Every structure is written in C-alpha cells, then in structure tokens.
C-alpha cells in the first residue's frame, strides 16, 4: 500500500487535498481534506440579523445567491415574513441564473478539460475532445464564456450584480421589474436557449427532458455524430471510458427542494432510499466533529446548537470540514439527488441501474440546464409589473429559523438563532460539507471518500486521472464546505 497526496486540487471551487492509499491497480482508501478555514459562523455571531444578508453571500463566490437565499429564508422563518408572488418569481429567476451558470462553468471549465489530458492522446475520440475542451485554449471556452456572460445580464436587471447581491430579502426582492424589462429578460433567455440548443445539446431542450431511460438516452446520443454537440461528445467519451462504473456511491440522496413558490417546488424535497422518497426530517440532521479540527462536543450537534471553535492542532482530525449525517447516515446531494428525488424518469432509471457515478452526476446537471431554462422562460412571463415585489416585517428580539435551499451542487441549510436582537448562533451546512465530509465517530467515510474506493490506476500513473474525474463529478465547492 502506498500513500499519495493529491493537491493543490484545482478546477474545483476552493481548496482541496485528497490523500489516497493505493495498492495494485486501484485506490483502496481515501481521505478528503478541506484545507481552508475562515470562520464565517463566528463572524456572524453578535451581528444585526439583517447583516447576515451582507456576509452570507460572501461565503462563496460561485454559490453566492444560494447563500443569500438560505439566509433570507432563515430570517423569513424567524420573523414570519411571507413573500409575494412577484418576489418568489424574482428570487427563483435570480437563483436559477446562478445555478445554471454554475452548471455551465462546471461542465465546460472544470470537468471536461480532464479528458483533453495527454494521458488520453491515443484514444480515438481524443482529437475532437482536445480541440473543444483543452483548458483555456479549447473552442468550447470561447463559445461558452460569452454565452454565460450574456445570460448573467439577468443579474444586472434583477439583482444589481453578481456575485454578492443584496437584492434578496426575507420578504422578496428589492428590485421591481417594469414591462420593458420583462421583454429584456425574455430576450436574454431566448439567446441563452439558442446556445443550449446549438452548442450544448444539439437539440431542443424539450426533447432531452422527455428522455425516459438510459436506452432512450443512448439512442438519442447515437442519432448524430459525437461532435454535433458538447453533451453528445461527453456521452461518447463516457461510454468509451465506462464512466458509469466510476465513482460509485449512493444508498441515500437528499434534496431540500428547489425553486419554491408558495407551497410548491419545481423540484420537490425528499430523501431517496431503497427506491422510494421519504420526507427530510430536520431533527435527524447533526454534525460530527470527531475528525475535524474543532473542539469536539460529546455528541454530534444539531445545527441549532452547533459550535465552531477551531483547533488546528488536533492530531486525530484531518479536515476543516465537519461531518454532517442524516439520522447517522451519509447522504449524497447535488443535481443527481435533486432529480432522483423529484422523480425525473431518466435519472431514476440511471440511479436504479448503476447508482450515483461520474456519468449519472454529469447527465443530471445537463438535464437540469434544459429543465430550468424552460422553467425560467415561463417564470418571467408571469411577473405582474405594478404589484409588490417585497413584503416587510420586524424580527422579534428573540427567535430562530432555518433556511433551506438547493445550490447548484446540492442541499444548503442555514440555522439561525437570535437573542437580544442580535445573532446568537449561526450554523451553515453546505452541499459539499455533505459530499466531502470526513469520517465520523464510527469511522464511516463521507460520500466522496466512499466513491473513490476502487478508482482505477492506469499503467504508469502516479496521480490517477480517474480520481480527477470522480472528485470533479461532484462539482465540489470547498469555500462553502468549511465557510
């Protein structure tokens, strides 16, 4: 058995190190290390509750709006503020813009460039992939960056700027929309849809979201040559490299539910376990710190009572990431979890046939780009100019609330306690805290740590390329993870 340490692990958001024990031609054990601690939960203590809306988005530059939404929802729950129809539509449109832009950034800039590595130079598909996806120089980057930037004009209209908007409030948004701006939003979405159709999918999004199972997906992929779209090219490479057998995980998948409007969600919440959807019981959420660099409580803490006291010298710990568990169990979160819980037939079929893996995680993200683009076109048509976008309310001097949402990379929760009109405790469990969790008190590894076991080592490799694919298939965000 030999130990290697892979880092700096780039093309992920934030700082990551992965320790691997390798023997023979496979990884036998993995330890995932989050290497940066900033202490946002401590910063927030003692602040005016409304100031959480300034600090929370700055936890993360890529999930900034998700952090705002979770903070605003925690404040809304604590203060009992309702959100008007326009406000819900605007929050969802802003949030969807970030989430879809993140999916694009992940696919084009973070994930695909690994297939353009020299290690694959002998593969028959290599030339097409290298031409399109070589880091920085590939033609896909040149196509995607302007499309993404134009898509983000939605933020210029609805959120002032991105990242780090203050437009998202407990009772809605600070920016009303005029009729001409609805026209502009629709035009931006039409332009973005064109990119999705021509470059990403090579087809109408309606056709892709109608695919019901893995055979239909495979048949769709074969309809045209791989180079006809970026998704088809991925599916071609995925088949050739058998990515469905790589990075397997997944007894449990969790989603807090995405794009709430009234009591309904575009993608409803739940836990997928043993082929069925169960409700998320928040009382079952706890964080274990037996392998994290913090003062260790006697028992895993529920986030309402969670503590964050850094102890960089603890010898039995190896990460700044706490280990969240649901009823003591490891769960995986992300687009795949969201879609399997929401019941998309293609994703259900992929998960039931091969679980979570590199292939299914990426397919779920591309599918979401199609699903959410269509939904956004619908939302902007539903704005009622002239009606309110924001309700206001006063926060009691002592109260508490939890704010749950779905970032691009999965379930995000903020647990807020207020006393004497100030924040008394603020605990955050981010998507990658779930996925990249270290071991817990019973030495059960986190989701990625489990998914890395068995990762193959190609002849002559010291740092296996398979590990690059598996880690990035989760679209990790390490700045959120530790915060």
């Amino acid at each position, binding site marked *: 058995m030999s130990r290697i340490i892979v880092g700096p692990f780039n*093309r992920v958001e*934030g700082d990551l190190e992965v320790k691997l024990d390798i023997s023979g031609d496979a990884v036998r054990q993995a330890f995932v290390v989050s290497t940066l601690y900033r202490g946002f939960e401590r*910063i927030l203590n003692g602040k005016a509750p409304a100031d959480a809306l300034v600090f929370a988005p700055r936890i993360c530059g*890529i999930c*900034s709006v998700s952090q705002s939404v979770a903070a605003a929802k925690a404040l809304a729950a604590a203060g009992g503020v309702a959100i008007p129809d326009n406000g819900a539509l605007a929050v969802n449109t802003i949030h969807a813009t970030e989430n879809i832009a993140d999916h694009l*950034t992940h696919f084009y800039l973070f994930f695909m460039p690994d297939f353009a590595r020299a290690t694959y130079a002998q593969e028959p598909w290599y030339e097409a992939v290298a031409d399109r996806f070589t*880091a920085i120089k590939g033609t896909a980057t040149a196509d995607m960056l302007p499309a993404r930037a134009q898509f983000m004009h939605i933020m210029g209209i609805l959120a002032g700027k991105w990242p780090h908007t203050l437009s998202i409030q407990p009772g809605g948004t600070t920016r009303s929309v005029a009729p001409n701006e609805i026209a502009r939003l629709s035009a931006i979405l039409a332009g973005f849809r064109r990119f999705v159709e021509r470059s990403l999918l090579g087809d109408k999004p309606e056709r892709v979201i109608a695919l019901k199972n893995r055979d239909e997906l495979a048949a769709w992929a074969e309809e045209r040559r791989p180079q006809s779209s970026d998704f088809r090219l991925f599916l071609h490479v995925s088949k050739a490299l058998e990515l469905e057998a790589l990075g397997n995980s997944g007894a449990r998948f969790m989603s807090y539910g995405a794009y709430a409007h009234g009591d309904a969600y575009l993608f409803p919440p739940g836990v997928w376990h043993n082929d069925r959807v169960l409700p998320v019981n928040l009382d079952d959420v706890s964080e274990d710190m037996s392998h994290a660099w913090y003062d260790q409580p006697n028992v895993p803490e529920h986030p309402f009572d969670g503590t964050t006291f850094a102890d*960089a010298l603890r010898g039995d710990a190896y990460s700044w990431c706490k280990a969240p568990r649901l009823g003591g169990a490891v769960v995986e979160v992300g687009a795949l979890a969201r879609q399997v819980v929401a019941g998309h037939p293609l994703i259900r079929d992929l998960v039931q046939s091969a679980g979570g893996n590199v292939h299914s995680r990426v397919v779920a993200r591309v599918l979401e780009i199609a699903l959410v683009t269509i939904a956004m076109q619908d939302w902007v048509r539903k704005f009622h100019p002239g009606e309110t976008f924001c309700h206001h309310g006063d926060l009691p001097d002592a109260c508490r609330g939890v704010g749950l949402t779905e970032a691009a990379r999965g379930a995000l929760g903020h647990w807020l306690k207020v006393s004497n009109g100030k924040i008394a405790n603020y605990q955050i469990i981010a998507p990658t805290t779930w996925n990249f969790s270290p071991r817990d008190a019973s030495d059960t590894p986190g989701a990625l740590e489990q998914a890395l076991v068995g990762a193959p080592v190609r002849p002559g490799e010291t740092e296996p390329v398979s590990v690059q694919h598996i880690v990035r298939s989760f679209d990790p965000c390490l700045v959120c993870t530790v915060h």
Partner: protein
Amino acid sequence: MNAPDFRNNGFIRRPLKLVWMQSGGCGGCTLSLLGAEGPDLITSFEAAGIEVLWHPSLSELSGREASSLLERVRSGEEPIDIFCLEGSVMRGPGGTGRFHIMSGTNEPVMAWIEDIAQKARYVVAVGSCAAYGGITAAGDNHVEACGLSYDGEHAGGLLGGGFRSRAGMPVINIAGCPIHPAWLIEVLHLIGTNRFTTSDIDEWERPLAYTTHLVHHGCARNEFYEFKASAEKLCDRGCMMENLGCKGTQARADCNIRAWNGSGSCIDGGYPCINCTAPGFEEPGHSFTMTPKISGIPIGLPTDMPKAWFVALAALSKAATPSRLRDNATAQQLKAPLPNRQKKQS
C-alpha cells in the same frame, strides 16, 4: 507629460506570464472576472499579451504538476511578470498560517504568497480581501486575516507597507467585493504596454481609473438625492442615503458609470452601496442597511463638503421637493410620472 512609447506598437513582445493564487476568500472575484465582456476573458488576456501560467479555476495542471510549477516560480527558476492574489492572507492561528495549508505541501499558503510576491515584476491584490483583509477579517478576526500590504486601514499586512515589487511598484489593489472584471483587465492591459505607473493609483494603491469617481456619479437616483426625497424601506425608489445606509456619496468607484452584468449596479438593484472598495468596509460600526445619525442628521456626509452647508442645503431642498419625487421616493413602482409641460390637452 512624456509621449507614450509606441515602439513595438506599445507592446512588450514576449507574453507576460501570470500566476494566480487564492487564499482566504470566496473565489467571487474570479467568478466576476469570468463575466468579462467586450471581449470575453480569454480574448482579453490575449489582447493584454498575458499567458496564464497557472490559475486555480482555469488551468489543466493539478496536483503535483501544479505544485512543482509553483515551486519553480518560487525558486525563481520560472520567472513571472504578474502575481495575482485573490482572498485574504490567513495568518492564524497565532501567526502560524495553519488556517490555510497549501494542499499537497503541508506548508501555510502564507509562506508561498510571501515568496512568490518577491519574484514577480508586478503584484496585484484582486479584491478587497487580498488588498486589505476584507470580509474575512470581519468580527474579531480570530483567523488573523490581512491584505498583502495592509491590515485593514493600516499599512503592513503580509508584505509590509513599504513593499515594492521588482518593477518598483507597491501592491496594486484592485479593491472591490467583488471586483468589476474591467477594473482588473484594464490594469493588466496597461501593465502589458508598460504604461501602468505609481501615478495611476490612489492613496490606497487602487487604480485611479475607477476610484477617481464616486459611486454617486451617474446614480440613477440623483434627482431624489438632490431633493432629499428618501427611501424608507429597501425596494423603495428614493435616495437611500438618509435612512438605508447608502455610502454612494463617499464610496470611490465607478459602479454607476460602468455597468455590472450588462446594466446593473448595487443601487440599481435597489440596495445601498456598502463602500466595498474601501479598507475596513466589512465593519462599518452599524448595520449595513441603516444610516447612523446624530440629531436626525446622517454622520456620513459627502467627504469634502462643509457640514453646515450640507445641512442648510438639505433643509432648503427638502422644502422644495416636488410632490412627484416625494411620492415616488417611498413607492416600489413609479407612482407619479413626469408632468406634462408642453403638450396641450385637447
């Protein structure tokens, strides 16, 4: 003034090698930068003659390939022209830097930053965190976050206030939370053409190109400001200075002249300027969306106007406020349109 040097068409012929590192921040400046337009980021780098040796979000090199490249940069074997740091320097706990270990090396990132900064011709702090400490230094700053050559408003930081890079420049502070993509790209372009000097930066070493303006300049709510027709709640249309903590009349940046994400700005988005380009903005001493006042008069008045004059003018203009502005100031939607002065009613 000397004529610019147009030999070689103004360009240094060889590409400028750039290394980018991240430490105690959120990555938001990189994400903002990816939104560069007219042209896109990669084309902008090309136009500025920049070769990205390594960037954590963009480069193929990972793991040992990346750390050995950075090791060569650190030793001077691989010369670099520009070193960009995004995020605060993490000095804690107790000055050890252990709150941020460079992955794969077991060494504090702080040590890498310090060494690589000595090798670069230009050192650029990308964002208020890298410049002054920023958001990461908020609260009791138990993580000991600081900027490259500032600790909040105090000269010092990791490299010291007297630091000069190999080109003789102090750390160039592209302050902002996050940066506007063009703030950085313009500086890179000017460095590439040898035209960026100490006369292009202000007293906090921020590029004058954007800090010669106030956020107030070009604010679409200026008419409300003129008549002190004030918003009372977030999402009202009026001026946010009197009640909602807006610092646009003191904050130095061109946010309402240079559009964000196509057309926006914080104030256009309906929320106040929090002066994010200034050192120490993260601890204003009051809630961000509330204006601190003494005897009903805001403390933070425009910087170079005598207070008595401001109070007198404000009282006058308040007395003269048209009802149109007074009504619109506290409404979410336009209530009273501009009056018709010319067209005869039939």
